[in-house]
């Protein structure tokens, strides 16, 4: 295990973000946790892991600056950014409400663009940093009725690759993780939309995954832990795909 680092995790009230914050804390890092709402849950998470809650809407340019400033003030300069917060709204392309379409791009892509801008100064001053972008398998292979989400996540992948090239020489390593089906609360939404039970939803997804199992949030947190670790110092501009084979096999 390497030195204790200061990490900032967005979307930490959700499944993947919460698991990431817990894992990074267990790895010995000091963690600032961000989410837009559910402040009670965010505060509880922060207390559980001995971290700091930094709530705010990352789509709001003023909020992003405040989030980073608060993390820097309480824990020190952010050395690991886990860009995880995401908005998703399924809709056929021609029926998409423009406001809902653009909100996904604003949160997922533009919000993290500004957040990354806000942390780079501190990372440059330290001469090292890790930017870990949570993209999506849909950003790799696309998905019907998810054009905004897929576009925003594809944008994040391209952003990661560009940042890898641009910031690598400064010792700041940008990489992405593109998961597919994860066992999170989103499955409850998907099950309700499909009019089936949660367990039926899980099985429907398992049937689409070559390895026949859903990713657990801890699997994604493990990938984040790895990319934050000294052992991943040769990775830059890469996209890890712990999808169980989904992104190479789905028609």
């Amino acid at each position: 295990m390497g030195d204790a680092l200061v990490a900032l995790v967005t979307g930490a009230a959700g499944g993947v973000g919460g698991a990431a914050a817990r894992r990074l804390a267990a790895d010995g890092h000091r963690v600032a946790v961000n989410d837009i709402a559910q402040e009670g849950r965010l505060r509880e998470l922060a207390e559980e892991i001995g971290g700091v809650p930094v709530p705010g809407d990352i789509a709001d340019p003023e909020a992003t600056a405040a989030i980073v400033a608060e993390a820097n003030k309480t824990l020190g300069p952010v050395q690991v950014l886990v860009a995880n917060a995401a908005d998703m709204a399924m809709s056929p392309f021609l029926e998409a409400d423009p406001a809902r379409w653009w909100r996904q791009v604003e949160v997922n892509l533009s919000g993290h663009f500004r957040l990354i801008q806000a942390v780079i100064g501190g990372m440059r001053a330290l001469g090292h940093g890790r930017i870990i972008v949570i993209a999506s398998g849909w950003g790799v292979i696309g998905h019907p009725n998810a054009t905004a989400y897929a576009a925003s996540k594809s944008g994040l992948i391209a952003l990661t690759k560009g940042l890898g090239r641009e910031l690598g020489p400064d010792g700041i390593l940008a990489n992405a993780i593109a998961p597919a089906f994860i066992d999170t609360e989103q499955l409850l939404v998907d099950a309700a939309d499909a009019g089936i039970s949660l367990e039926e939803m899980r099985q429907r997804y398992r049937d689409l995954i070559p390895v026949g199992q859903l990713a657990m949030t801890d699997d994604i947190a493990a990938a984040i832990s790895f990319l934050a670790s000294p052992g991943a110092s040769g990775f830059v501009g890469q996209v890890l795909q712990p999808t169980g084979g989904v992104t190479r096999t789905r028609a």
Partner: protein
Amino acid sequence: MTDVPVAVITGAASGIGAACARLLRAAGWRTAGLDLNDSDTDLPVRLDVTDVGRVRAAVDAAADRFGRLDLMVTAAGYYEEGIDVAEISRAQWDRMLAVILGGTVNAFQAALPHLLRRGTGGLIAISSELALAGSATDLHYVAAKGAVLGLVKSLALEVAGTGIRVNAVAPGPTDTPLLAPESLWREPGYLATLPLRRLVTPEEVARTVYYLATEGVMYCGEVLSPNAGAVI
């Protein structure tokens, strides 16, 4: 049945294979090293990975000696550069494919029955970022490393339902004895083009292998590439 995990590593006597063996041993694993030379492992076996009978016997011996098998890492290989495609002889082509592709096939076929018996475990091939990007004047090496990726992706799907995971690590130019002192990949002019401005270390490759082996249950036929930014 023992609680101590067991790995067989081909090419364990030097470079990336040796780094994998060192890291796994430090993490408490038992290791067997298959190499032309003696390796610093719990069970060093001197052999040529193109000898299917000897590879099978060595893997069986390791599983027998240590009571189980969890992981096969295929790092055995060699490199030849600076050869124009028209100059690559039939013998050079055949030997490269026999060692890099054939050696991987031999090792995977020897290990798979042991993994299938337990219904868990990993096969990890060391490929190369050159197989992702292509490269001039080492075409036989690149073709062999690319063929390994096809093998990995297909075998991963073939055994996906069994709990066994097959993946590849495709490192960037790595600072090992395979790269001659005068290698193109050591030239300052080349290194300056890499975002990280340096070669990858064998330890960085070993760390990637270890992550895949211990926490990589959702990787199925994937290619992880610690490459200093050589291929993005």
